[in-house]
């Protein structure tokens, strides 16, 4: 445990001195996380009792519509509350430590070094008044990874690694002098600079055009395979998650409603919402053609006491509106929060 814990371990190494890599203690455990936002004078829960874990070297996808609490959940990995929000309950355990109990100062050595972020919009993520090279250098120096000329050399090396052309030249530019794709590569370089154990990707390609998206996905897959770090990949785009994730969790109105290994989730989605989401993914082969597409929109102001999805669900019964649904393991490693899931399975079978 002693020396190995502080230096990020490549895949498989996690087992040394500890439990076995996959069957043992996961890198991240989120237990009953609840996050509130202030709305006028009331606190409204935007994330409710969310629990999941991420194994070492594993990539977990977090899917859902805008406003479902994905980003809030992602930021909780940093023990970070946006202005006007608070953690109302739950725990985020990272490598054995409860992060939510730590102060900003205690979190500082973890943020950026052991857990790093690639946010959604590259155009607003980099500080406009600072050259991009320095934004990497200060991360390296801040975490004592390297300093001075070494840090600059390492920065240029990182820029090459993320596929930026003429890395030394780009390091001297300001963010606005780069394209969106280049900006996001710089952000990825910052995120991997200190070789973190966990990288949190919050819709990292959404703001970019399709070609750039595809290239960046290849880059991210490559980096993950090389480094063996764990990842939390947040996206509304199931097609992307299917490509890159080992497991996918689906969120609706602040709650997790289904979580399963990727292939299992896409082949046998059990929650009506997941089915709708998958049906909404444009595909060449129309295999889910018969499935109900999603109706309506997520309305936070109009949630029933029971299942949040009930108002939009084609299979809802009166009970759905009154009985809260909890995640339930209906098959090994496949959990669903829908009491009708077994019936629906039967319905879909013939």
């Amino acid at each position, binding site marked *: 445990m002693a020396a190995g814990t502080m230096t990020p371990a490549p895949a498989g190494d996690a087992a040394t001195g500890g439990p076995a890599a996959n069957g043992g203690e996961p890198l991240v455990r989120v237990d009953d996380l609840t996050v509130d936002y202030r709305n006028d004078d009331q606190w409204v829960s935007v994330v409710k009792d969310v629990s999941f874990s991420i194994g070492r070297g594993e990539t977990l996808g977090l899917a859902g519509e805008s406003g479902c609490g994905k980003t809030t959940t992602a*930021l909780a990995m*940093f023990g*970070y509350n*946006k*202005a006007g929000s608070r953690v109302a309950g739950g725990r985020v355990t990272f490598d054995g430590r409860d992060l939510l109990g730590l102060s*900003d100062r205690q*979190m*500082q*050595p*973890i*943020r*950026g*070094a052991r857990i*790093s*972020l690639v*946010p959604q*919009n590259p155009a*607003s*993520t*980099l*500080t*406009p*008044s*600072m050259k991009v090279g320095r934004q990497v250098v*200060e*991360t390296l120096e*801040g*975490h004592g990874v390297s300093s001075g000329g070494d840090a600059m050399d390492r920065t240029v090396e990182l820029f090459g690694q993320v596929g930026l052309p003429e890395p030394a030249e780009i390091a001297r530019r*300001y963010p*606005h*002098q780069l394209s969106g794709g280049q900006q996001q590569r710089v*952000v990825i370089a*910052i995120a991997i600079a200190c070789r973190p154990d966990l990288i949190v990707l919050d819709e990292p390609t959404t703001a970019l055009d399709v070609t750039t998206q595809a290239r960046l996905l290849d880059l991210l897959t490559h980096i993950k395979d090389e480094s063996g770090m764990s990842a939390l990949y947040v996206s509304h785009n199931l097609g992307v998650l299917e490509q890159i994730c080992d497991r996918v969790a689906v969120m609706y109105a602040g709650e997790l409603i289904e979580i399963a290994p990727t292939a299992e989730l896409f082949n046998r989605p059990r929650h009506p919402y997941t089915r709708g989401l998958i049906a909404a993914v444009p595909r060449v082969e129309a295999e889910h053609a018969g499935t109900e597409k999603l109706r309506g929109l997520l309305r936070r102001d109009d949630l029933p006491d029971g299942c949040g999805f009930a108002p939009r669900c084609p299979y809802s019964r009166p009970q759905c509106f009154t009985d809260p649904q909890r995640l339930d393991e209906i098959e090994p490693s496949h959990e669903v929060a829908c009491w009708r899931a077994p019936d629906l399975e039967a319905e879909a079978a013939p």
Partner: protein
Amino acid sequence: MHFVRVTGQRTALAVVALFAVSLITFWAVELLPGDAATRMLGREATPERVASFREQMNLNAPAVERYTTWITGFVQGDWGESLVQARPKTEGAPAGRINRSVTDIIAPRLTNTLELAAFALVMYVPLSLAIGIVTAVYRDRTFAAGLSTLVILGCAVPDFVIAIFLLVIFAVALEWFPPLSLVDQAESFGAQLRMMTLPAVTLTAAMTGFAVRQMQASLLSVLNSDYVQFATLKGLPRRRVLLLHALPNALGPALRATVINVVWLVGGVVLVEVVFTYPGIGLLLLDALRLLDTPVILASTMILASVYVLCNLGADLVAAALNPRLRTG
């Protein structure tokens, strides 16, 4: 290239604006009843004296001709002579009046005003920056809310009210400072500073509120920005995030506030100089207006207008220097 062209355009516009100011001022003074002769010599003056004064001062010439003469001289650096202020040495000389040149009259007054403005700015810049930063960074704390309330109060109270308030308390009741700021008669630098304190504090108080609110607003929006969040989540120390990521990007709007304040100073200083009898350019302008001393009025107005125009020009250039997006095009 782009930057140079913009600078050129702005400068040309500034010259046009100043020309317009001189035209408007001249014709506004023309429209006022009476002229320097009647104002200077008073009601009891004989028509002959008035006529000879007008003759001497060339006041009988058509207005267009007098304006043309003045502007021709002005652009060549000859700002003319006062219509009413005699040159002290030539008092007894028989060969008619030789009046003081406008440059001689204005120079010491301008120096006084600049000293007062500099004094106020020296207090104002660090004060508004500090209060703006503290109230934005510690926005959740009670003391920051108290400070913000004070700032809003400072914004709301007119400057002459602040001036009279300060006079009553610190000059009349406590007698810490002289009620008249006759800095030309000050015996020492210390005495001069004491005379300047109350007017300078008045100006500072009037300017700070506005600047603090600008600084607060721009820093708050920057503190909530994606890049400040990202810098924090990179694990940088809070101080570094504030000084290197937030502040440089928040200063632009605060700078604009300072420009608006300096521009406001141009007018505010006139009022404050009157209340404290401070011998600056504002008081000079007021006296010149009373006597319709056109060359002095024009020269003072042009100086005040130039400050206005130059500040706006300067602010645009500094903003461009601070913002790499504007600098590198």
